[in-house]
C-alpha cells in the first residue's frame, strides 16, 4: 500500500510523489478525497456560504442558535434558518500556469501539486453538487471553463493538459477574470505568488470586492523555501532567463528570512481583507494539507 504515515485516526496521508505516478486526475482526486473522508465521523465541507436560503421546521437536535426567533413571534412556530451552503454554489479554480510553476526539485512540480489540489477541490465540490469551473492564466487568460454542474470532466481535461511556458503576472489576468464572476462564487487561486505582497493583494482584492469568497493557495517547492543548494552556481530565472551567480552558503539564511517574511506579509494582508490564505509545501502530503485547511475552514464557519 502506498501509504506513508498516519497522523490522525482514520486518515491516511499520501506522498505527492506517489500521486504523480497516477495518470488519471479524477482517480487521484477520488483516492485522496475519499481517503481522508474515510473513517472520519463527519466530512469536511468546502463551500459554506453565508447566503440565507430558506426556513424549515425546527426538529429536536437542531442548534438552538439557528432558531429564527423573530419568525416565531409572527407564526408561533419554531423554524430554523438554512443557508446557501445547504444547496449549492459556484466554485472556480484560478490556476497560475506561468513557467515558474514547472519547477520541482523532488519529482513533483508545483504545477503537478496544484493540479492534484485543484482536482481534489473540484471533486469535493462536485460531490456537494456545486458547479465547478476553471480559469488558467500566465500573464493573460489562457483558458476558461465557466462554472457548471456538467463541467467537471472538462475541468479535469483542462487541468490535465495545462502546459506552463510563458512568464506570469497576476494583475492583468485577474482583473480580466473579475468580469467572469458576476455571481457570488467561491474562488481558489493556485499560484506561487512571486510578486510583492501588496501587488498580489491589489490583483486579488477586486475578486473579493465583487462578492466572491476567495482562497489563496500559495504553492512552493521545498527548494524554494529551504534553499538547500551548496555549490556556488549560476542561477537562472525560469521565466526571464536571467542568470545570477550565487554563493548559496552566504545567502541561505537571508533568503529563508525573505521567504518567511513574504509568507507572513501575505498572511497578514489576506487576513485584513478577509481572504483565506493557505501555504502549501509540495513535500507535504496533499491530503494532509487539504484536510487541515478544510477542517479549519469548517470549524470557522460551522455556525452562522
Amino acid at each position, binding site marked *: 500500500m502506498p501509504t506513508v504515515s498516519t497522523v490522525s485516526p482514520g486518515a491516511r496521508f499520501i506522498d505527492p510523489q506517489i500521486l504523480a505516478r497516477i495518470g488519471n486526475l479524477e482517480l487521484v482526486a477520488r483516492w485522496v478525497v475519499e481517503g481522508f473522508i474515510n473513517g472520519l465521523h463527519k466530512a469536511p465541507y468546502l463551500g459554506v456560504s453565508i447566503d440565507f436560503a430558506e426556513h424549515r421546521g425546527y426538529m*429536536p437536535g437542531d442548534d438552538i442558535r439557528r432558531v429564527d426567533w423573530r419568525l416565531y413571534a409572527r407564526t408561533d412556530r419554531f423554524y430554523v434558518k438554512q443557508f446557501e451552503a445547504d444547496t449549492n454554489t459556484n466554485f472556480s479554480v484560478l490556476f497560475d500556469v506561468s513557467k515558474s510553476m514547472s519547477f520541482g526539485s523532488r519529482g513533483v512540480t508545483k504545477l503537478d501539486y496544484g493540479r492534484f489540489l485543484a482536482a481534489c477541490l473540484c471533486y469535493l465540490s462536485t460531490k456537494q453538487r456545486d458547479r465547478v469551473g476553471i480559469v488558467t492564466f500566465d500573464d493573460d487568460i489562457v483558458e476558461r471553463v465557466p462554472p457548471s454542474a456538467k463541467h467537471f470532466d472538462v475541468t479535469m481535461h483542462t487541468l490535465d493538459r495545462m502546459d506552463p511556458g510563458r512568464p506570469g503576472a497576476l494583475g492583468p489576468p485577474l482583473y480580466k477574470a473579475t468580469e467572469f464572476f458576476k455571481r457570488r462564487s467561491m474562488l481558489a487561486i493556485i499560484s506561487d505568488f512571486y510578486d510583492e505582497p501588496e501587488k498580489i493583494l491589489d490583483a486579488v482584492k477586486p475578486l473579493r470586492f465583487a462578492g466572491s469568497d476567495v482562497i489563496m493557495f500559495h504553492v512552493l517547492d521545498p527548494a524554494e523555501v529551504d534553499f538547500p543548494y551548496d555549490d556556488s552556481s*549560476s*542561477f*537562472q530565472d525560469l521565466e526571464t532567463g536571467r542568470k545570477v551567480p550565487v554563493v548559496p552558503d552566504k545567502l541561505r539564511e537571508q533568503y529563508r528570512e525573505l521567504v518567511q517574511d513574504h509568507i507572513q506579509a501575505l498572511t497578514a494582508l489576506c487576513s485584513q481583507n478577509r481572504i483565506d490564505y493557505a501555504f502549501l509545501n509540495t513535500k507535504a502530503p496533499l491530503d494532509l494539507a487539504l484536510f487541515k485547511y478544510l477542517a479549519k475552514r469548517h470549524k470557522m464557519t460551522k455556525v452562522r
Partner: protein
Amino acid sequence: MGFLVPLFFTALAVLGVPVLIHMIQRQRTEIIEFPSLMFVRKIPFHSLRRQRVRHLLLLLLRCAALALLIAAFARPFFRSAVLVAVTGGSREVVILVDRSYSMGYGNRWERARDAARDVVRDLAPDDQATIIFFDSGAQSGARSTRDRASLLAAIDTAELGAGTTRYGPALQLAQGIFEDSDQPRLEAFLITDFQRIGVDSAANTLLPPGTVLTAVSVADEDETPNVSVSGASVQRDFFSSRERAAVTVRLANRGNETVERQVALELNGQEFESLPVTVEANSSATLTFAPFTLEDMAMPVSVRAVADALPHDDVFHFTVAPGDIVPVLVVGGAGAADANRYLRTALAPGSSPSFSVTVRSVDQVTTADVAAARVVVLNDVGLPSGQVGAAVRRFVEAGGGLWVVLGENVRWPADNLDLLPGTFGEPADRDGRGGTLVFVDYSHPVFEVFSAPRSGDLTTPRFFRYRPLNVGPETAVLAKFDDGAAALAEHAVGEGRVLIWTSTIDNFWNDFALKVVYPPFVHKVVEYLAAYTSPTAYLTAGQVLDLAQYPGAVDLDVVGGNLVVRDPSDDRVAVGRDGRTGFIDLTEQGFYEIRDTDAADSASVVVAVNVDLAESNLERVDPQELVAAATGRAAGDRSVTTQRELEPEDLERDQTLWWYLLIGALGFLASETVVSNRLSRTELDADE
C-alpha cells in the same frame, strides 16, 4: 590495533580529488534553473588561480588533516586480553507479546503464542526469562525466572485484549528488567504485528547498550482487508407522544475491494432489524435503521456487522437514554404572566436537554414545587418569605441552581442577603439608545457558545434600565454594560450556584428578549445552573470509569453501597475490591452492568464500552525500523544485533583514541591557517 569502522578508509581516495581539481584547471559553473530570483541577491562569483600546486606545504597540511579526520572516524582501538573476558554466558531474556485486538486478525494471536513458546523452548538452562503481554499497557508475570513451565503456562492462559498497540510501556518494562539484571547477555523478542500506530509511544525508550532485540512479525504479508463499524448517531423524534430514536451507523472499508455486509441492530441484546450494505473500496457507507420507541431507562444498543478477519471492530455498542429533562420552576409576580412568556417560550425547543417549565406566582409557590426543580428562576420577585424561602435556600445549598432576575419589584429580605453576590440599588435609566453589553466572559460555560465567529452577537441588545449591583472584587462578573455596571454575576452558595441578572428577561427594560441570541442564552444559563452534562453514550476500552464522576451513576451509592459489576464476559466482581472505591477498569468490549446489591429497588447502570478504532488501521511499520529506534543501532545488521560479544565496540569506547586523532587533525588545520595567512600576506605584498 584494529578499527571499528575500517570502511571509512575508502574515503582516503578523496584526498586525490582536490589535487586533481587543482591540476586539471577546470572551473565549472553549473547552471541551476530556479523559478524566480526575486529573493536572490547578486553575489559575485570569485574565480581562483588554479594553474598549479603552488604551496606544497599547505597541500600536505590539508591532506594530513583530512587523513587524521578519516582515521578518527574509522574509530581505532588496541586489542587486548580484556577482549575475551566477557564473551558468552547466560542470557536475560524478555519476551514481549502483543495482545492488542488487532492480533485477533486471522490467526495472528495463535501464531504469536506459538512464537513465544518457541523462544521459551530455546532457552538455555542458565538463561532467565520474563514474559510481558502488552497492548496500551504492559503486564508481566514472574520476573527473571528459570521456570519454563510457568512461562509456558502464562502463554497458554493469556487472552487477547481489547486495547490498542503501544510499544512504549512494554519496552520500558523490559528496560527496567534489563537494568536490574546481572546477566552478561541481554536479549528481547518482540512478537507483534508491528502496527504503525504504536510506534510513537516508543520514541523515548532506549534499551540498555548491547541488548539484542529480535523482531518476530506475525503480520500478514498480503493485503489486510478490514471493514469496521466506525460509529453511530441517533436521531430522535416524538410519535404519539412517545420518544423514538433512529440509529444511523457508519461503516469504513479499508480494503481494496468492494464488500457487502449484513448489519444488525440489537436492542437489549435482541435483534431488532438486519439490513444489507455495500461499502466500496477505501470508502465508507452509512445505513439507517427503522426508528424504535425508547424506554424509561438507558437502553443498551449494539450494531453488529457480519464478522470478518478482525471481529473486534465489527460491533459498536452504545446506550440510548430518553432525552433527559431539566425541571425549571419560574416564580413570578402575582398577575404577571406576560413577564414569563419569553422565558417559557425560549425554553420550549431543545432535546438535549429538554426543559419542563413550571410557572408559579410568588403567592402560590410551595416547598414541593421547589423540591421538584433543578433550577429556580425568581423573575422580578424577591426571595419568598416563610417556609418557601427557607426551602429555596436549602435547595441552593444542596446543589440547586438559582437565577435571580432583578426587575422593578424585587425586594430582598435582609436576613438572606448572603444568597446574592452583593447588594443592589434602585433602577437606573440609560438615556438615548440605551446601553449595550461590552464585556462578556466568553470562557464561561454560559457564554462559550457565543465565542466562535458568527455564532451570535451579544452587543446588539439595548438596555434602557437596570439595577446597579454592588459586588466585591472577589465576585465573578460574567457580563458588564458599557458604563461598567454588572449585567450578570455569579455567586456560590454551599454546593449550589446563584446567577443574578440585573435587568429584566422580558422586553420591558431591554430588547434582549427580541434578539436571536436570547434563546441560546437562556438555555445556557439554565443548563449551567442545573449542572447539566450530556449523557455519555459509550466509553473506550482501556479507560477507567470513575462512578463518582459518571453522570449515569448519580443514583448509586458509590461510597456506602455494595456495588457489583457484571462485565461483558458475564463475570461478577465487587467494585472497590482492589481498594479503589468507585473505580472500574474497562478492559473488555461490550456492556458493563453495575448494581447496588444492598439497595432493594436498585436500578442497574449500564455502561457501553467500545474498542479504540485507531487499532483498525492495520498499516505496518518496518520491524527493523522499530528495532533501530529501541536499541539505538542501525537495523538489519545481524552481526550487531545478535552478538553482544562484539568486544571491539566496548574496547573502542573505553580507549577513545579517535579523540587524539581529532585533536591532531585540528592541530594540522590550525597550522594550515597560520601558514596560509602568512603566504597570503606575502603574496599581497608582492602584488603591491
